């Protein structure tokens, strides 16, 4: 874990689509540069003609004879209709090529497919990740706001995301990994990416989804396969609590926390909010907004609205004792 | 000099100037006719959208009534009335163009009555749907789309009946006569359009 944090901090945050780390983002980048060169040339030519006209034909004083009136010319018109048409034809062709590279169909999980399948559910304003299968092994645990993926080494390790929404439209966008795909209630979409570079890849919801749209941040942690396997094993475990914290656990379970949150291995089985089973293994709170420190966790519990105004978790007005107990309990959910 | 007016040019020069070809008078539709046509085009867009919405949701309900509950017998009758009213309004306009006031009044009143029968039929149908089948606009998607589509059409029929009643009132007060035939014809265009839309709605909702 600590090596991972080091890795993450070494990488300066970068969301540029021109710095791709996955094949689909790379082919989009290449296409984009080509399109920008084409449009850039058109820009230069047309603006040059415009400037030439202005410099050459500008007269500072009105009056004088009218210039020759030219009503038009069919050959010229045809010429400058055909030329753009050819460019358009070329653009359609290169669009087709890249489109078929980028948008592929979702395969079915197979044994030893070296692929990770995750279902992503968008919520107002956080992400739920349901790990379906890896390498053909069924997983079936849920985590949130931090997507861990394995990096491929000699062979690729693709990640297939199935995208759903539980409320309004969202859009999954990690620019360095792939273009956007919307999460639309009542529909199932999918996207994919793969990378050979370990690191933290940032993104965020790109379809306006209400009040806290700006703070629906995505963190994708790409780690070497050993680290990833270790993380997987850990996440699949239910929450383990030492004996001396049973009172604290009781305090948590007696509050309304459990109506919305789940802690596997306890009676807390809510699904409206993020799964808390391994809360402290995540780097951030509030969907990537603030670092996951004990102080921040406490401040969040005191009043989430102070941190993420409008979010769907209300302030429960916990007394100091309950608050201490619950924080203590949550801190052991590693 | 750029703006030299014709009057400032010496007369002998004017004679040597090229003469423009004579202007032929254009014969086309009147502004009112173009206005009605473009209004009806926008109505086509309106009803197309409504029908697309209806078709989008057709058969997507998991609970509640389905189109199978609709009574075709009743609707066949009301549809017949609406088609008949298109025929009668056609004869009404024809009579007015011939200056036959009483014939116009007869045909026109018949059209209004047929329109009213249609509306009454719709009202009865809706009552049955609500009371017997418990199909309200909020019940399920069929209810939502059905009442919206048929309701928008019924609203147009109502508007048409109001228009025709207005014309009838004006005629009885001798404010509409042969000289107003163009305007009256426009009302009939609208009415024909509403009838045509109904045929499509009928096919989509009741026959499909």
């Amino acid at each position, binding site marked *: 874990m600590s090596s991972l944090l080091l890795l993450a901090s070494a990488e300066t945050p*970068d*969301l540029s*689509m021109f710095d791709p780390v996955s094949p689909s983002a790379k082919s*989009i980048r290449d296409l984009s540069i080509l*399109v920008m060169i084409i*449009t850039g040339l058109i820009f230069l030519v*047309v603006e040059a003609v415009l400037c030439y*006209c*202005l410099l050459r*034909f*500008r007269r500072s004083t*009105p009056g*004088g004879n*009218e*210039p*020759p*009136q*030219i009503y*038009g010319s069919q050959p010229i018109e045809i010429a400058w*209709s055909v030329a753009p048409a050819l460019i358009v034809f070329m653009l*359609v062709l290169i669009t087709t090529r*890249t*489109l078929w590279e980028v*948008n592929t169909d979702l395969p079915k999980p197979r044994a030893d497919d070296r692929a990770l399948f995750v279902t992503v559910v968008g919520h107002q304003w956080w992400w739920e990740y349901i790990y379906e299968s890896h390498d053909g092994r069924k997983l079936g645990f849920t985590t949130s706001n931090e997507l861990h993926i394995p990096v491929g080494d000699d062979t690729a390790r693709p990640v297939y995301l199935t995208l759903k929404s539980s*409320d*309004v*439209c969202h*859009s999954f966008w990690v620019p360095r990994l792939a*273009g*956007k795909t919307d999460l*639309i209630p*009542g*529909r199932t979409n999918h996207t994919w990416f793969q990378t050979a570079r370990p690191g933290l890849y940032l993104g*965020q*919801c*790109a*379809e*306006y*989804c*209400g*009040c806290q*749209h*700006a*703070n629906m941040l995505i963190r994708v942690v790409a780690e070497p396969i050993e680290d990833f396997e270790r993380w997987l094993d850990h996440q699949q475990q239910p929450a383990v609590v030492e004996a001396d914290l049973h009172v604290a656990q009781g305090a948590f379970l007696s509050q309304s926390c459990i109506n919305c949150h789940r802690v596997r291995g306890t009676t807390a089985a809510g699904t409206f909010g993020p799964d808390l089973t391994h809360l402290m293994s995540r780097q951030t709170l509030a969907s990537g907004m603030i670092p996951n420190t004990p102080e921040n966790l406490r401040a969040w519990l005191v009043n989430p609205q102070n941190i993420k105004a409008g979010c769907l978790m209300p302030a429960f007005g916990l007394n100091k004792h309950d608050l201490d107990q619950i924080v203590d309990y949550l801190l052991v959910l590693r | 000099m*750029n703006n030299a007016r014709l009057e400032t*040019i010496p007369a002998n020069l004017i004679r040597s100037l090229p003469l423009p*070809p004579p202007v032929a008078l254009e014969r086309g*539709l009147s502004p009112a006719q*173009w206005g009605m046509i473009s209004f009806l*085009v*926008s109505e086509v*867009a309106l009803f197309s*959208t409504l029908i697309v*919405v209806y078709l*989008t949701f057709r058969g997507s309900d998991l609970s509640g009534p389905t189109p199978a509950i609709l009574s075709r017998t009743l609707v066949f009758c009301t549809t017949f009335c609406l088609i008949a009213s298109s025929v009668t309004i056609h004869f009404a306009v024809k009579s007015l163009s011939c200056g036959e006031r009483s014939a116009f009044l007869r045909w026109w009143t018949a059209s209004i009555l047929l329109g009213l029968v249609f509306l009454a039929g719709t009202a009865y149908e809706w009552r049955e749907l609500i009371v017997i089948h418990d199909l309200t*606009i*909020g019940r399920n*998607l069929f209810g*939502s789309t059905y009442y*919206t589509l048929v309701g928008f059409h019924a609203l147009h029929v109502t508007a048409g009946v109001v228009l025709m009643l207005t014309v009838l009132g004006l005629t009885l007060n001798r404010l509409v006569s042969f000289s107003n035939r163009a305007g009256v014809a426009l009302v009939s265009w609208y009415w024909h359009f509403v009838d045509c839309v109904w045929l499509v709605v009928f096919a989509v909702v009741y026959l499909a």
Partner: protein
Amino acid sequence: MAVVEQEPVLLRAYQFTPEPDSASWSAVLHICVMTVDHKKIGIMYVIMALVFLVIGGIEALLIRFQLLFPRNNLIGPETFNGLFTMHGTTMVFFVGMPILIGIGNYLVPLMIGARDMAFPRLNAFGFWATLFGGLLLYFCFVTGGAPTMGWFAYAPLTEHTFARSAATDFWALGLAVSGFGTLTAGINFIATILAMRAPGMTLRKIPFFVWTMLWTAVLILFAIPPLTVALTMILLDRNLGTHFFDVQNGGSAFLWQHLFWFFGHPEVYILILPVFGMVSEVIPVFSRKVLFGYEFMAAATAAIAFISLGVWAHHMYAVGMSRVVDLYFAAASLVVSIPTGIKLFNWLATMYGGRIILASPMLFAVGFLSMFLIGGLTGIMLAVVPFDLQLTDSYFVVGHFHWVLIGGTLFGTFAGIHYWYPKVTGRMLSERLASWQFWLLYVGFILTFGPMHVAGFLGMPRRIYTYDAGLGWDFWNQVTTIGAIIQVPSYAILVFNLITSLWKGQPAGDNPWHAWTLEWATTSPPPAYNFETIPTVHSRRPLWDLSHPDDPDWKYE
């Protein structure tokens, strides 16, 4: 024929009672409410649009101040979301459309030699419906805050579950009512243009602006009704419990996107076609040359109007349509660039070999040419599906459509306003103020919207009320805000110039620009009846024929 009008213009324009000096405010108001004159209604449309422009501009400034620093706390998320919703709605529906419809209202009858629009009372109704729609929209502030679902209001954000206040109802009602007004305006334009042209003015001889207004009106006929239906569905969902967009009960979030963009994309062309028309009037006059390739320009306009009805889903590449559908919409969208290119080339060809005079209208027209080109080219980038998957809903898109709507629509409209102001008021605008306005706008505009493209490339999504430091976005957002501040004096100068020139401006005379279309054949401002005698027309440039009787246009058309 020409008697230069000396009296202050507003009084003149609103002259109703025999004695002009009795025009008190209440009398002016009375005339405004009662008038069915297309010129007065046109002026009212433009004034209304300018008022809403100021309101929408203030909203934009607040948005920019909030984004000046990362994690800025100037305004909260709810307010921010309300501001960009109102900004977008206001600018599209209550600035863009009314200002163009207003200018069209004023000019179309004059340009085709008619005494008024085909249906003057309907025309007045259209204006009042539009204004009432705007007031309904802003009435939401009285009922507890602005709607917060963005101007394209993606379902199910408009459902009662997600938008509890009445603001969304007022939004939908306001747009439906103003849409009804717009529709009547469209009907009116079609009837006027098709049936009320002066003798001899065949459809092949109408001024180019009139031609573009005709196609704008056609687009209005096709685009507004689907929006009306969709808005009705929102209102029914919220108030009668229907399930159109109620996803939990089988409704479709997807349907709204299709319906909205089926309206929304033609809407973009409703906002740009009349501007093409205005620029096509200004460039020839200030290049002293006839418009190059009128027929091809006309065909290109029709082509744009037709194609624009079939490209709507290029706003929806990321929603997961099939690749084939994506490709169709990409190809159709790219094809639009062909007729648009034809227009651009024809404008340049009109300037080429001319005698260009960079008076204020031409200055704005050239600004339009240079900037609209960029908006068009970024549009090509967005049409390319994979590129768009990165760019859509990012700040790049925000930069792109502002580039089109300000660099295109607004610059072109300002060209038109500077060009026809002398006709409307009888006075010239101050050229000095106009060039200040132009350069401040030009620089401010580029500084505002240029960096947005970069922020989009760097991964900044649109509609976020705040962002983290250190993502490389801070600098670009700060430049954007500075650019927005530079634009402010530009609009102030415009308003100042428009008002003070009413009495300070040089008397204009009938035809200060030596232009060639019919509106310049009558007095400035034109009398209520427009023309003493309806002129007979032989060519596209009747006043050219008049001033060049030896070499008239009709010989070449």
